[in-house]
Structure formats: structure tokens, C-alpha cells
């Protein structure tokens, strides 16, 4: 067994749902912590006060720019972590915190929440609210293979992570409208229904085979667009679904 990678969970303004999602991998999480990753930082899970040096930072939540400590911690995260992963809609896109306008006791002046990508460079996105435990798991396994695997495994990890890195490059705004702007308006929609299945608030229905987004309900988590087979579809990875599924299952045995 090669040495483990070091991972931290950095908690910004989020509901801890992303952390719960990570934990929902149950025995899978124990295997990951046992074989592949040492948890070196995590408010609720590791007794460490200051952000240490680490290979991978899993950041949950957006940054309240009126909260000095949060701003300082996200900057520090970028300095200390080789790879920064935005876990969940808030870290990627602001998600529900996009609607925050302050006025809440006991810090009513805390009114501006930004996705972490507006303050630091982010390497990988895991959108969604909550992000899916299995996607967090897959990214953890691939991050391990990227940093500690043999050449072939590194190649696979690079290919697997590429679209999630491209999502991070794409920007910090997401909305159900993306389905219109970047799929339907681009003549790419095939009416498969992935977006509706992925939406955590059931804001998407299909009218005559095309998505219809109830924008009042949309929380801006980015799941619909990322799930759409016409946002990205990397043949070199997805065609190998059988082998990769087995590889991940094998890694977690």
C-alpha cells in the first residue's frame, strides 16, 4: 500500500449537509480513511485548530465576505492545499446562500456570500445540494489515484476529473436557466430527463420533452446542468463505465 494522501474538510457558510453526504458513504468512508486518506482537518471530525498543509481540501459552503475569519481561512486554504475541491452548490455557485441579504441575528451585517471561486482559484467542482455521496467518493478515489497511483491510474484520474475541473473554470454562477442558455438554446437538448432527476427541489418538469424550470423554486445548486449529458460527455471515460465502476467498487472493498 502506497502512502496516504492528506485531506481536510473546510467549513465555510454551509449547512453541513455536504459533510453529512461525505459521511453517508458509511463503510466506504471508513475504507477511504483507512486506506487512502488521512483526515488532517475538519471542524467536527478532527481536533485541529488551524488549517494545516494538505493535499486535498474539500471546501463546503460559500464565503461571507463580512466575516474576516472566513475570508482569512479560504485564503489560507488556497495557500495550504495542493488541490482545492468545491464540494456542493454553496462552494461552487453560492446555492441557497445567493439569496442571503443579511438582517439575521446575531450578525445582521453578514449579508454577502460568495462562492469560493470568486475569492480563490478552485480546481475541482462537485455541484449539487447536497452533493451526491457517490460523486464525493469517486472524486476522493480519483484524487488518490492522481497523487499516488501508477502511470495508468494517473491517466484515468486525470481524464475522470477533467470535466469537473472544467466546470470550475466555467464560472461561479449556476441556475436552472443554464439548461436553457447552454443546452436548449444551443440546440443540444435531447429531452432525456437527467436534469429533472437531479434537481433536489423538483423545480424541473418536462413539457413535451423539454425541461421547464420553475425559477422561483431553483436554489442555484448547479446539479441539473452538471448532470445533463449535453453539458459534458467525455466518451473516453463514460464508455469505460463498466471497468471504472468495478475499479471504484474494488478500491472500497
Amino acid at each position: 500500500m502506497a502512502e496516504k494522501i492528506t485531506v481536510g474538510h473546510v467549513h465555510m457558510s454551509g449547512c453541513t449537509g455536504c459533510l453529512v453526504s461525505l459521511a453517508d458513504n458509511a463503510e466506504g468512508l471508513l475504507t477511504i480513511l483507512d486506506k487512502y486518506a488521512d483526515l488532517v482537518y475538519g471542524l467536527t471530525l478532527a481536533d485541529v485548530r488551524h488549517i494545516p498543509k494538505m493535499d486535498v481540501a474539500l471546501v463546503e459552503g460559500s464565503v461571507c465576505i463580512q466575516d474576516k475569519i472566513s475570508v482569512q481561512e479560504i485564503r489560507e486554504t488556497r495557500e495550504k492545499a495542493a488541490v482545492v475541491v468545491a464540494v456542493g452548490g454553496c462552494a461552487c455557485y453560492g446555492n441557497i446562500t445567493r439569496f442571503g441579504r443579511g438582517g439575521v441575528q446575531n450578525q445582521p451585517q453578514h449579508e454577502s456570500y460568495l462562492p469560493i471561486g470568486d475569492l480563490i482559484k478552485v480546481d475541482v467542482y462537485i455541484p449539487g445540494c447536497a452533493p451526491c455521496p457517490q460523486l464525493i467518493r469517486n472524486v476522493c478515489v480519483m484524487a488518490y489515484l492522481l497523487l499516488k497511483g501508477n502511470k495508468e491510474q494517473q491517466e484515468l484520474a486525470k481524464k475522470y476529473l477533467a470535466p469537473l475541473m472544467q466546470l470550475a473554470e466555467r464560472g461561479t454562477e449556476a441556475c436552472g436557466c443554464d439548461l436553457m442558455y447552454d443546452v436548449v438554446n444551443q440546440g443540444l437538448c435531447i429531452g432525456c430527463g437527467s436534469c429533472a432527476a437531479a434537481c433536489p427541489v423538483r423545480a424541473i418538469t418536462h413539457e413535451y420533452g423539454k425541461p421547464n424550470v420553475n425559477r422561483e423554486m431553483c436554489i442555484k445548486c448547479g446539479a441539473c446542468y452538471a448532470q445533463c449529458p449535453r453539458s459534458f460527455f467525455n466518451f473516453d471515460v463514460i464508455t469505460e463505465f463498466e471497468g471504472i465502476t468495478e475499479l471504484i467498487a474494488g478500491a472500497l472493498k
Partner: protein
Amino acid sequence: MGTELGKYKLCVSARSTDKDILKKAQDGGIVTQLFKYALEEGIIDGAIVAGPSDEPWRPRPFIATSVEELMATPGTRYNISPQVSWIKEATRSFGLDRIGIVGTPCQMQAVRKGQLYPVGLRDVDDKIALAIGIFCMENFPYQSIKQLVEDHAGMKLESVKKIDIGKGKFWVYGARGQVVQLPLKVTHKYEQPGCHVCLDYVANLADVSTGSVGSPDGWSTVFVRTRKGDDIWSKAIAAGCFETKPIEQVKPGLELVSKLANEKITKNQKTVEERARFGVNKALRNPYIKP
């Protein structure tokens, strides 16, 4: 090209041995029969199929959890049913642990992407027990089918018994026995635009894929692709669910499947390339490059 048919372990021409299924089937009744067997054997505990809706010939995804429900849904509708929209709900409201799903090649792509990149599909990835893909040249919006049948073929949708695309024609069969055929050059412009960048004809990512092309009338061509698919297919064969013939011994055979697959892929690859220079130094988005 050589990759146009995807990976497969086995290819045969087949039809169901169940007379009731064959009577209602589009071709060889492969999808209905295989789901029926899988339901009866507990290999799946429900299947997302294209069921009836409140409008004639407009499908909607329907979760069949019994053979009776399944038997109410055979045949091809040639317009969009967002099959994948129910995939998470199937594991929740319906409590399914082993899901069957039938869909077009792009829907199989969506299912596999959903398994490898489950962004919003919590606890779904290991519950896809049998994904059956159907060959697909293109699909139509419901309104296109309405226009083709009612305006071009001059028939009421309510009175249509069967719609079929085959032998280079769009066929509409009426309940009174009348048959209208439209040349495909009439139907092309009504196709769903998203289909024109699709690079998969025979559902390369399904566990088992099937379609009429390559086999004689009343039979279907079947590709068995994955280990899961192979396991279920061989059990179904052992149980006598299907009559099969080696694909090499039927007309028109695999050559035609390859020919049509290559035609589709070449044409759509060209569309993808044209999209790159669609405007003046402005490209349309290419999902195969990046999101």
C-alpha cells in the same frame, strides 16, 4: 470505422416466444419479454418504460412493477419520453433497489454518466440492474409526430394503430387498415435538433440493445454488451424466452446495421464540426469537448 456498433459480447437475431407479446410488439418484442422475465425472476423489481399519457401517442415515463403494467406499454412511439427523469424517484417513491430502464442511445449515455458522475443522483449508481437501449436514428418532439400524422399523412392520431420507420420510409398504420407512407425527406426537418450531434446509433452503452434493423420482419437484432446484460440474456435464453438465429444467417444482417450506424455517425460528426464554425468566429457549444 469499426467502432460504430460499440463493444458487444454477442449479437443475434431474436424474437419473443410469447405470442401475446409478439402480437403487440413493434418487432420481436425483445424489450417487453426481457423485462417480463427479469421482473418474474426478481432480477429487477420495476422498469422505467414509456407508458401511455392523456394524449394519443404521447408517451410518458412509467414505472411498471408488475407484468400486467408492463404488458400495457409495448411498441415504439417515436417521440420524446424523458425516461431518466424518474430514475431517482424510482428508488425513492417506488422503493426500487433493482431498476430496469429502456431508452434511446442518448438516454443510455445519460444513465451511464449518471452512474459515473452522479451529481444529483444520490444512491442510484448501484441500482441500475438492466438498461436496455433501442437503436435510434433520431427522435421527434410530440408536436412533430402530430404534424406528420395529421397534416402529412392525413390521419387522426387517435385512430393510428402503429407508427414505424423502416425501409427508408415513415409508416403510419390506421385502425381501419389503411397505411400511409411518407418519404424520410419529408420527416427530416421535424426531427429533434439535439439528435443531430448524437454519435451513437445502436445504444453502445446499454446492457442489451435492440432494434429492427438487420433482422427480418417480426424479428429484432440484439446486442448483448455488458457482463450484467450477458448474465440476464443467457438466463432468459435458458428459460426459453427467446427464439434466436445467428446474425450471420439472417438478411439483411449486420452489414446494414453497420452501414446505417456509420451513416448516422458520419453525418452527425459533420454537424458537430459545422457547429464549431457556425457564426463568424463564433462556435456553438460542443459537449464532447467541455461543459
